[in-house]
């Protein structure tokens, strides 16, 4: 962590150099501080006392949601990691009761920085349901087959265009 402060200071000192005439000399020899003193060029990874914030620009994809959910489930010690599949039921295959599902839901809430009400967590039977619920929450649909009405519409539109072309 100390090396990152030095990197931060060397990077910011390169911006200070053009104004060396106006600033007093001692500002270039500042001791390493814990807070970046150059507000404009702050990068979140460089600050030491960084409070974790929710990044609003996170791009949710289906593989990312699936791997995070399976990781959280694997970390749960009452679940056997080898027996865990996408379609293994919590109650029958993995032997969990409803209190364990509440614990899992709380862990997933912590992982995804979101609230999952008890109304929805009652209907979680397999991990696939959880992943589908989170995909619906974050509007992820790349794993879903597009509705076939689109294909028929395209064919109709193509046929109508050809008819119009031939006339």
């Amino acid at each position, binding site marked *: 962590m100390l090396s990152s402060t030095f990197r931060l200071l060397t990077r910011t000192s390169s911006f200070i150099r053009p104004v060396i005439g106006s600033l007093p000399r001692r500002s270039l020899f500042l001791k390493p501080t814990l807070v970046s003193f150059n507000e404009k060029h702050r990068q979140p990874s460089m600050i030491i006392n960084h409070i974790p914030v929710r990044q609003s620009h996170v791009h949710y994809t289906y593989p990312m949601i699936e791997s995070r959910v399976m990781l959280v489930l694997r970390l749960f010690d009452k679940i056997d990691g080898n027996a865990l599949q996408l379609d293994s039921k919590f109650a029958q295959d993995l032997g969990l009761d409803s209190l364990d599902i*509440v*614990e899992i839901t709380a862990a997933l809430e912590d992982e995804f920085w979101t609230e999952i009400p*008890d109304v929805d967590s*009652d209907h979680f039977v397999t991990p696939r349901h959880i992943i589908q619920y989170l995909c619906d929450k974050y509007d992820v649909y790349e794993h879903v087959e597009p509705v076939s009405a689109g294909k028929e519409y395209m064919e109709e539109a193509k046929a109508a265009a050809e008819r119009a072309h031939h006339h």
Partner: protein
Amino acid sequence: MSLTTRLPQTLKQVRPVLSTDHAEAKRRVLNLYKIWLRQIPYIRVDYIKNNWTETRLRDAIKENFMRNKDVTDLRVIDLLVVRGQMDFVETAEIWRQQHNTATMDRRKDTYKKKPFGFLERFYEGH
């Protein structure tokens, strides 16, 4: 919507305490479990003299809930949920004593149990 309008016909003989069917009672129980789980880090800090770890608190809460898992009477379930919620409020508002470890550790129960079985009664002198 008052309670009387929600009662199905069969329940009109016994007045419910809080919930009218098992699904609603289950929702209450799970909600109580969740708020206890969410309170664990604050319990650790508020009662810091006891040096409780997260796993130990989680096991204690789970054990307290599982002790009543065979109850089927709706009114009894509701009363247990209400009592659990009262315990939760007392724990969260730090109305308990700091050294009151009997809440989280049943092995520290100090009252003497009635002797059950021949040998125990023999030791007692019966």
